[in-house]
């Protein structure tokens, strides 16, 4: 289930920066400079004066700068005051990002802390106690702490509410046991957001509770999970009677499902970078084709390549339109369609690139050597045809399978009747598993 990148195919996430040179929309309300913009501009300049970019040399300097930025309320302006922001509309972030980008200031590397910014942060802000927010948000936003997500299980993927990891109350603690999968970057993570079942006697969606977990706790074991590319972006995480203080419970007992939906709805929002024409799998296809000697360019492929180009362009433009809407408010209906179309398009194009490579596709320069990337990216621009082909197989599974997305489109957008279900109204213990 959902543990990966935003589906738009761009690296930046909620609360992140990295927008220098992007085409994001400026706040529309201000033909002249409004007081809010003016305030952000002068405060950002003040931050830069107090912490000159030229003096930021080490990783520690970078974190110190980011902490100052957070404390000045310039981290993510839509975060609340005292939590790295100012409670402003999200689009004002561009004012800050443009100045910092132009000054060459370091950012919090949003592509490296996707779970922090896109999942854990928004959920802790929505449901965390004062103490929890105070303790976690600053380190979370700067990236000093790295977070991972422990939701999916071997028996609970698309049907996430069927999760079986148990949390049993023991005094002021909870004892948690179970197995999680598809955990991006668990091997590097300091903390996790975790769903566990606290009451199996009620229907499946009602017995789930949301926890924050210190990954260094005794009983937590992380093992890499090797994927078809040979590398391991993901892990399995085993929880063996892990003791978690009740102070690490997020929200009320039984409220986990509602909070999980906050986490997963934020996964898809916030990117402000506009994807470029001919990026992603189409890049590999087109470049190899253009650079091939003319006698190797069999004209029978031409129509399929042009068709692929048009599809890629349609998905790119639809992505920009959806991003623009998400900068203003909740994801539009088109976001689900876009994820579906984008996944299927990537797969088709990567497959075509393998075919047009002809016997070249027998060679796999990336190899299958095992390694664990230190950050997650579904970006395949510049990768070989073979790698793109294999990596894009996951596009229609990660972040919501194409089949689930079709149900979402059919039921929530087209308002078609739901599939009859037998698992939602009975105690979890009575659901066949």
């Amino acid at each position, binding site marked *: 289930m959902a543990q990966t990148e935003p589906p738009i195919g761009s690296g930046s996430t909620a609360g992140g920066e990295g927008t220098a040179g992007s085409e994001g929309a400026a706040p529309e309300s201000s033909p002249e400079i409004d007081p809010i913009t003016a305030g952000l501009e002068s405060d950002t300049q003040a931050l830069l004066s107090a912490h000159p970019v030229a003096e930021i040399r080490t990783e520690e300097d970078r974190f110190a700068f980011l902490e100052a930025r957070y404390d000045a309320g310039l981290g993510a302006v839509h975060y609340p005051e005292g939590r790295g922001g100012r409670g402003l509309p999200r689009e004002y972030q561009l004012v800050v990002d443009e100045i910092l980008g132009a000054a060459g200031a370091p950012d919090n590397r949003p592509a490296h802390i996707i779970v922090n910014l896109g999942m854990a942060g928004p959920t802790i802000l929505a449901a965390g106690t004062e103490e929890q927010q105070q303790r976690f948000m600053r380190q979370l936003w700067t990236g000093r702490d790295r977070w991972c997500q422990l939701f999916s299980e071997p028996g609970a993927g698309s049907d996430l509410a069927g999760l079986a990891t148990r949390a049993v109350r023991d005094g002021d603690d909870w004892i948690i046991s179970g197995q999680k999968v598809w955990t991006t970057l668990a091997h590097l993570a300091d903390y996790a957001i975790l769903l566990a079942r606290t009451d199996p006697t009620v229907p499946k969606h009602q017995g789930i509770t949301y926890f924050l977990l210190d990954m260094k706790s005794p009983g937590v074991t992380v093992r890499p999970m090797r994927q078809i590319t040979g590398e391991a972006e993901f892990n399995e995480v085993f929880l063996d009677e892990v003791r978690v203080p009740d102070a690490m419970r997020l929200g009320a007992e039984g409220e986990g499902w509602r909070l999980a939906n906050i986490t997963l709805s934020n996964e898809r929002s916030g990117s402000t970078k506009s994807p470029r024409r001919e990026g992603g799998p189409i890049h590999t296809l087109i470049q190899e084709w253009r650079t091939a000697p003319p006698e190797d360019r069999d004209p029978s492929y031409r129509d399929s390549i042009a068709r692929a180009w048009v599809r890629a362009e349609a998905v790119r433009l639809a992505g920009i339109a959806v991003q623009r809407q998400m900068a203003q408010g909740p994801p539009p209906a088109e976001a689900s369609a*876009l994820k579906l179309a984008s996944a299927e398009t990537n797969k088709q194009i990567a497959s075509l690139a393998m075919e047009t490579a002809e016997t070249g596709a027998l060679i796999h320069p990336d190899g299958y050597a095992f390694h664990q990337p230190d950050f997650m990216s579904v970006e395949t621009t510049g990768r070989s045809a073979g790698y793109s082909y294999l990596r894009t197989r996951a596009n229609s599974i990660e972040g919501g399978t194409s089949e689930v997305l079709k149900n979402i*489109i*059919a039921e929530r957008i087209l*308002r078609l009747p739901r599939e009859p279900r037998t698992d939602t109204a009975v105690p979890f213990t009575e659901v066949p598993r």
Partner: protein
Amino acid sequence: MSSAAHTTTTADSEFAAGLRSGVRGLGGIAAVRDNLDDPTEVRRAHRRMMDEMGLAGLLVTEELGGLDTSIRTAAALGRVAGEVPAADLLGPYVEAPVILGILHAGHPDDAVRELAARTLTTMADGGDTVTVSTDGLVFDAEASELVVVYQDESLHLVPTRALDLTELPAFDPTRTVHRIDPVSVLGAGELLAAGEIASEIAGAALVAGRVYLAAELEGTARAVLDATVEFLRSRIAFGRPLGSFQALKHQLAEMWSEVSLIGPLIEEAARALDDGEDADEAALCAAAALSFAADTAVAVCERGLQLHGGIGYTWESPVHIWLKRAAANRVRLGTPHTLRAELAALIDI
């Protein structure tokens, strides 16, 4: 429900809403269906309503009494026109003003500029309807007083009654198609331009026309999709609404997802034209938009017919009207395959 969420300006939406309520007031798709054996009256009523809205002046400059809107606006109208196949908008409201507008703005000959200005002024005033023929065929000729004919690298302005026209049985029953005898064009009207200028102008009209036509196809696809969703929601079989079966739901979701990709391609192509980007970029975007819109619309119509079951194969159901319009529009200004061949050359593949 599945209505479009396009980024349109208020003016675009106003024109589109005006056209939509105008067509509805004339009975909508039901009136078209009920009069399909002889749609002359319906077509005439549509034309009158559109002329009264001032659509002929949409792309005419204010100086000549027009509304001076954009290709974006024309695309917004195209979406509506595709929902209820009616009188042809492409020739009289898009191609003709584009061709005459370029002539008026830049033809070296004073007399031609003057003639173009006069004609545009009359059009904007709701007078003569002027349509365009670029391939020896003319649509809805009986509803036009004048035809701009492009043949043998020359542009002519000819009174319709002076042309030797042969009516052909039309695949799309909502429109008439006539073949023009090329000999009757010569000497019957005014020569507007010849040679390279003429073919460049015809090329510019083609690109604008393609963006408009893509929008019409998008409108048709959305109309069929809406009708199919509605049908599957209400039709009960095996004790359940058909729309609760996942095998059918997933098809509708795929159709909706595909249709939602058409709009952004059209917006980009309209933007390239309205912002005056270089001709190759505009041609590229237009070819991309129309090839995708045409493939998608025809596929959605075909699948929509299938999902309607037997009723979708009847004359009574409107599905075949949309299908015929989509299949006709698919080949009108280049087919998806020939458009992709043009596109391939433009992007060096």
